[in-house]
């Protein structure tokens, strides 16, 4: 009985040894995306801390998905306006991004600045974007992607009533930070 157990353990040990190759897919379920709107009447900023993203280091592909009603504002009225009047989150609950990191060298020796070319989908409207990102390989298991870019509200057909134009910026600054861990399915 004991011998079988030892054998089994050894076998399991061997299996895990063989699987020690670095994983190809990395995931974050708690990525952070913030946006800032600097306008003459007021500044608005909000964060979403539950952004999902998967990074495949064998194909350099990256996918991002987030819930629009998951943004947290300073005031609940802003939250309400954002979801009801501007984003129409009931109709379009998610925003997504799919892209490819160009010229990524894996394994990463140190910090690299790279361009992600991809398609950003907000309110079911697709837009091609290039996003600059800094990629760091923190330790063997962790990749961090950080960066910022801008989107124009016109591109996504977000309508602002004329009286509120001084309150909402025409281009919104977006900042992101994703900390990826190996994806174990």
């Amino acid at each position, binding site marked *: 009985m004991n011998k079988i157990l030892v054998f089994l353990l050894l076998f399991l040990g061997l299996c895990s040894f063989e699987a020690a190759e670095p994983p190809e897919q990395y995931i974050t379920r708690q990525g952070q995306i913030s946006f800032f709107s600097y306008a003459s009447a007021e500044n608005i900023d909000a964060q979403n*801390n539950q952004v999902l993203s998967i990074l495949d280091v064998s194909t350099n592909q990256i996918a991002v998905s987030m819930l629009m009603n998951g943004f947290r504002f300073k*005031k609940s009225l802003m939250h309400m306006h954002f979801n009801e009047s501007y984003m129409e989150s009931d109709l379009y609950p998610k925003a997504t991004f799919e892209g490819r990191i160009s010229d990524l060298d894996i394994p990463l020796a140190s910090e690299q600045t790279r361009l992600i070319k991809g398609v950003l989908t907000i309110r079911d409207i697709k837009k091609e974007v290039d996003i600059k990102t800094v990629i760091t390989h923190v330790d063997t298991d962790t990749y961090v992607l950080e960066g910022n870019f801008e989107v124009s509200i016109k591109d996504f057909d977000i309508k602002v009533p004329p009286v509120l134009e001084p309150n909402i910026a025409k281009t919104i600054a977006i900042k992101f930070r994703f900390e990826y861990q190996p994806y174990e399915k």
Partner: protein
Amino acid sequence: MNRRSTYIGILIVLLILSGGIGYAYRIWNQDYPDIVKEKTKLSIDAQTLLEVYTRDETMANERYREKVIEVVGQVRELTFLNNRNTIVLEGISTDNSILCDMQEGQYESIKKLLPGEQVRIKGICKGYLKDIILLQCILIKTQTQRNTNK
């Protein structure tokens, strides 16, 4: 007599105006509702909620999205990424879970939670990506599970 009624009239108008401004100001600066005071609409356990969401997301959203719900589940881990306090509840598989983003001031009550402990959490259901997301959560109660069967 006539002048007196004009004064009273002006006074009333002023009162109404200031009340209106005060009210508008309050609405404008309104904070997020305190979950402690909000009434729970639905109670469900973590696994069932995930099953409902994985089976039919649209229907699940109709039932749970933006509602104050209570979820009973097992703690998988605590995370403190991005300066947020999050309790991750076990899902159906390792690939899904319920992410409970805690309301401010919850750190003291959650910091001692251990993986495997059973908890009841109240929060607003936001929807589903790979995990179900609950925001503004508070810990309602803890119940240590006794693993007698292991």
